């Protein structure tokens, strides 16, 4: 790649990788704290999805226990889609992305910064949604296993999602495009996450949950490292 040669020369002037990530995260959190538009819209949307599911699936007690993990994950993925779209659209709309790219930091730091801030928003929504869902359906969802699965699934989802949404915002069709290009590639994550959450909720043996958990961890590593490797090509001008 052509950018690597001058980049190494500038190494001394560059702030450290971790500090660059931290700066991007801090900027996003600050912007969200002041505007409060992203998390609130994700949250309202998530509640609405649960309401729609309630009537679409007619969630009776007997059926509920079987579909809870599925309903939760669909809710998270749809809400997360809004978050991902918004997180990158904000950067693109006001030309912030160009500003970020001009900064003398490794572009992977920008990528990880965006992933971490989107992940924080998504986890925040998920953590609030769990008791709301529990309240509606009288289930206790604070199961450490479930929380772990939610964390792992969200990491993989935002890792691919951030990469693809930074591609989607640079196209003409923008927000319509993101779910179309994102959903077919995250199917293995959904599969493993729904399976593992369902088993944790029904109290299955650890040996039964193990394969899905291992798959989730492997997917997180694979998707994060690929996105990290190709992010440069996506934001290159």
């Amino acid at each position: 790649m052509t950018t690597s040669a001058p980049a190494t020369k500038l190494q001394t002037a560059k702030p450290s990788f971790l500090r660059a990530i931290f700066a991007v995260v801090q900027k996003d959190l600050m912007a969200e704290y002041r505007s409060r538009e992203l998390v609130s819209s994700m949250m309202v949307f998530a509640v609405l999805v649960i309401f729609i599911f309630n009537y679409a699936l007619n969630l009776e007690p007997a059926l509920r226990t079987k579909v809870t993990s599925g309903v939760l994950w669909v809710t998270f993925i749809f809400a997360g889609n809004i978050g991902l779209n918004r997180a990158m659209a904000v950067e693109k709309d006001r030309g912030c992305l160009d500003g970020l790219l001009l900064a003398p930091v490794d572009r992977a730091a920008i990528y990880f910064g965006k992933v971490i801030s989107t992940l924080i928003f998504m986890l925040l929504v998920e953590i609030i949604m769990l008791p709301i869902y529990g309240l509606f359906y009288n289930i206790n969802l604070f199961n450490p296993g479930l929380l772990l699965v939610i964390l792992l699934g969200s990491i993989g989802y935002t890792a691919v999602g951030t990469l693809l949404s930074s591609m989607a915002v640079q196209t003409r069709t923008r927000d319509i495009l993101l779910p179309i290009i994102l959903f077919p590639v995250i199917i293995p994550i959904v599969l493993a996450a729904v399976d593992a959450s369902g088993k944790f909720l029904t109290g299955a043996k650890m040996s039964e949950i193990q394969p899905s958990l291992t798959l989730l961890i492997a997917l997180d590593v694979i998707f994060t490292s690929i996105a990290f490797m190709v992010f440069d090509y996506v934001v290159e001008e």
Partner: protein
Amino acid sequence: MQKKPTTLLALDIVSLILLGVSTYLALIFAPTEAVMGEVQRVFYFHVATAWVGMLGFVAAGVSGIVYLRTGNLKWDRVEMAAVEISLVFFFITIVLGSIWARPVWNTWWTWDPRLTTAAITELIYIAYFMLRQGIEDPDRRARFGAVYTLIGAVSVPITFMAIRLFRTIHPVVIGSESAEAQGGFNMTGDMKVAFFFALFAFTVIFVDLFWNRIRMGALSEKVEQLKLKVMQ
């Protein structure tokens, strides 16, 4: 205009002949399978088209990587040609499979790993073309296309394995068969002839289509350039 290379022309004719012979072998020469009857003849083209779809899938992933490494737009054309061919052939595979599954499995569709993976691959390819459509700058279009094929190339095999964690009813005619599979059979000598010939014929057809499509990509690019020149 640039004339079509003679080798390519010859390959076109050979492909047509091979397709004809392969059709004869599959429909007439091969013996009728005892349990499933005539519908089993779908199998020869079903596996052969799936094989071509796989070839296209691998070719797309590889040319995506080569494009990202070299930045040569030629590889973008190769990648797009591979994706297009793979899209069409996987679609034929799914349709043929459904025709076979209706009498044998008593359903057009089941959520089996192979069926689902083939369908997801189709969805990824459609998304790929939608992604490309939204971008005007050719370099960016090529870069995004390559990145997306790369992600797809990683995601699809994992999806396959992930669904395989659950049960499958798809028969494995070559290699080991799982206990739950339904509709499997053993090939006799004449069936093997028809089967391997179909594989060979479709491989040649793949090469022929691939070459033609890459050439067409190059020509259409030339047309674009000439148009721009006329406008100036």
